[in-house]
């Protein structure tokens, strides 16, 4: 048997040369002087703050920019030797697979099976080959049970996995991924990264992946490219990136590196494995100081009270039990992270609390009122200006409570993601506050999608402020690090039932998936955050020094 040379003289999967781009609505250059080469089989992580140009670069690499978005370009983008700007996405289809941020716009068929079948049909593959490819990609992404489901009945995370499967099913030589784990639960997120690494190693698929939750991806990446204001600010190895990030923008660095840097360690680990290796030989204490609220007696559930709550969802064909015998009490002033796998019932619980869906049995009450922000803040924005959305003193009070400090005459849809979210929250709060008092319960459903760490810190501060003013803040999230940074208490749902409920330091340590990177490094109950980890490591390093 002969083996073909790996690359030979074949053109590179992606070659960008001095590329610049401006969107048609103005606002300056979204990309400026980008030069980037991705050879076959390389796994490149694209990092950078929100609005730094990551998404635009991915769009350019598959021809969507300028073909679908208009605007002006300079320089060139070649995909396997073909010009993306000239050919457009239609001609790039057999060279790249794209998974964009919003999974709802990435499904074009009615069932999951037909969604996966469609790209294979377009390529003229026969029925046996299609059946095999569908089965394999479904198994790889853990979605065989979804194959015959209607796409309209899937949760956001399930849709994300289907979109990924549809992009992977034809095994394109270059995969472009725009925050593919943003809506995935930690289990699915880790599985996805493992799968991408396997495709990359075994099939030579090149991967260019934009991501904010770097701790997941960094150990798997061959190279990191950092974008800043439309330019490439760093291009190098993951280890070099850690040093760059700590020196220039610590919010970009992964928790493991921040812990070791804060503790004054010489070597910065790339992930949990390296960090644990560094700890070998040091005495790790059995337990630490728990994060989050201490154990407390059950409250009176004035903000939210669920008693044996059962909720069914009817999709027109069948009824699905979304919540099963949920007992839960939340008091005003608590900060609660609602976690669980995709489809575990998190959004349904929030919607039931807001009265959007009702129980089939049991009881749910939010006696002190509730303001709910659903997954897409844009759904709340229907007027031409912030002022028109929220008129009068009550509108201004709501904007102040939500922490909005932008232009009142701006079109809400032109605002940044964080500002848009605050306006939408203010819309939900407006008129529900008695003078300065908030409703007893404020719910946010997956608010961190597309947010960099700076914006997430802003959101955590907002949650603090709302809780200080007496509201219970309940945030449904898949982002473990964010949950650890804002929550006192974590409620973990599984298959519609509460499977864990306790202080954040307890629930987010000791597990495999629903646990922070710091907790996985130290394995000490209660140590989940960077500051606690750094404190613990400092002590360990001091104790380990020769006396």
């Amino acid at each position, binding site marked *: 048997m002969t083996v073909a040379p790996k690359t030979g003289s074949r053109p590179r999967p992606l070659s960008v040369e001095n590329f610049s781009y401006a969107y048609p609505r103005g606002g300056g250059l979204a990309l400026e002087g980008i030069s980037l080469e991705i050879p076959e089989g390389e796994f490149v992580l694209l990092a950078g703050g929100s609005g730094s140009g990551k998404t635009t670069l991915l769009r350019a690499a598959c021809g969507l920019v300028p073909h679908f978005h208009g605007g002006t370009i300079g320089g060139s983008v070649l995909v396997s030797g073909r010009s993306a700007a000239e050919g457009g996405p239609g001609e790039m289809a057999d060279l790249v697979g794209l998974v964009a941020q919003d999974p709802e716009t990435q499904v074009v068929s009615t069932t999951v099976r037909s969604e996966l079948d469609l790209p294979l049909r377009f390529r003229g593959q026969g029925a046996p080959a299609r059946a095999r490819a569908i089965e394999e990609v479904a198994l790889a992404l853990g979605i065989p049970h979804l194959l015959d489901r209607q796409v309209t009945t899937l949760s956001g995370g399930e849709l994300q996995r289907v979109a990924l499967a549809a992009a992977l099913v034809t095994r394109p030589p270059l995969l472009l991924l725009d925050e593919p784990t943003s809506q995935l639960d930690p289990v699915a997120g880790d599985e996805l990264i493992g799968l991408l690494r396997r495709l990359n190693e075994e099939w030579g698929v090149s991967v260019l992946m934009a991501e904010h939750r770097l701790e997941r991806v960094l150990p798997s990446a061959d190279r990191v490219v950092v974008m800043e204001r439309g330019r490439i600010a760093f291009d190098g190895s993951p280890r070099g990136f850690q040093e760059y990030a700590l020196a220039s923008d610590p919010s970009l660095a992964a928790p493991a590196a921040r812990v070791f840097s804060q503790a004054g360690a010489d070597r910065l680990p790339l992930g949990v494995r390296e960090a644990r290796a560094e700890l070998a030989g040091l005495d790790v204490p059995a337990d630490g100081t728990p994060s989050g609220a201490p154990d407390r007696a059950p409250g009176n559930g004035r903000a939210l009270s669920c008693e044996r709550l059962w909720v069914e969802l009817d999709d027109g064909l069948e009824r699905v039990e979304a919540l099963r015998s949920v007992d839960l009490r939340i008091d005003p002033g608590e900060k609660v992270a609602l976690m669980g796998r995709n489809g575990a019932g998190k959004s349904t619980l929030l919607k039931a609390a807001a009265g959007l869906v009702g129980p089939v049995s049991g009881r749910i009450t939010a006696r002190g009122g509730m303001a709910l922000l659903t997954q897409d803040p844009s759904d709340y924005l229907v*007027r031409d200006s912030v002022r028109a959305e929220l008129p009068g003193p009550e509108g201004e009070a709501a904007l102040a409570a939500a922490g909005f400090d932008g232009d009142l005459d701006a079109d809400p849809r032109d605002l940044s993601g964080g500002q848009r979210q605050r306006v939408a929250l203010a819309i939900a709060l*407006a008129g*529900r506050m008695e003078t300065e008092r908030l409703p007893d319960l404020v719910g946010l459903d997956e608010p961190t999608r597309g947010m960099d760490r700076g914006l997430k810190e802003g959101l955590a501060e907002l949650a603090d402020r709302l809780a200080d003013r007496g509201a219970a803040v309940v945030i449904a999230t898949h982002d473990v690090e964010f949950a650890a940074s804002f929550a006192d208490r974590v409620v973990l749902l599984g298959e519609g039932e509460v499977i864990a409920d306790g202080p954040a330091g307890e629930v987010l340590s000791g597990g495999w998936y629903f646990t922070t990177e710091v907790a996985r490094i130290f394995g000490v109950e209660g140590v989940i955050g960077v500051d606690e980890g750094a404190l613990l490591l400092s002590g360990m390093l001091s104790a380990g020094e020769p006396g």
Partner: protein
Amino acid sequence: MTGLRRSPLAYLPRKGPLQSAGPLAASLYLGGFLVAGLLAPEPLVALAAALGAAIAGIGAGAWRAVRFSLGLGLGIALVLTLVNAVASDRGATVLARLGEWPVLGSVQVTAEAVAAGAMTGLRAVAVMVVAAVWSACVDPDRVLARMHRFGGRTALTATLVSRFLPLAAADRARLGEAAGLRGPAASPVTRAAMARRLLEGSLDRSVEVAATLELRGYSLPGAPSAPRPQPSRHDRRFLVCGVALLAIVLAALATGDGSLIAYPEVRWQAGPTTVVLVVSLVFAGLVTWPGAGRTRDRRP
């Protein structure tokens, strides 16, 4: 009470005759109602088109789509009637004088303006019911395959034809949910604001879906057309019914024996062809009902 997760306009893969039929046959059948409703020369025909399409939808199990479209359509019809009544000063039969209005000047409501507005509204109701039934009962995957087969190389056109209504319906469900979550002091979501936002949002999303379709390989150079879909035993029934309806509509328009002339005075006439058309439209709706078209077993 249970929560509904699906838009009423989303396609449901039931085993009814209309869902089993090929997209061409089903579209031609519903097209008969659409053309009748759109070109209705007088109100009975528009009403019959809406009623026939509603009967067809209910027979196919799409009662939620029918209820939704009737609610929306009647609301729009009411708005059209009111706007025309106030904005048009044509007509001889004055029902009310509303005095001087800013911009509009002297406003009077005439029976003729009300009739003209109501006629347009009825046409809108018929179109909306037909569109809703089509969206809920005709498999968009098969529509997409058919468009690809017929040489469609524009993903945006394919998306607008096969996905726009379901996308708009899903958007409307989400926007409606968010509207219900607004605080009492936020500006209320008016129908006009919602409609504008819905149209803008759905078009944007259609463009994004079209981009996805392109990247899936819809217009790959040399991409083979999707294979011919499996024929259905119901196809002939719907094809014949659709062609017959279209023929009767054209005949009714050609004979001109049914009409509503609003101005200067309301004149409404309905002749025998119109009556045939009205009866045909209503009975054509029954074609989708289970058991319709089944040959009776004549064995002893």
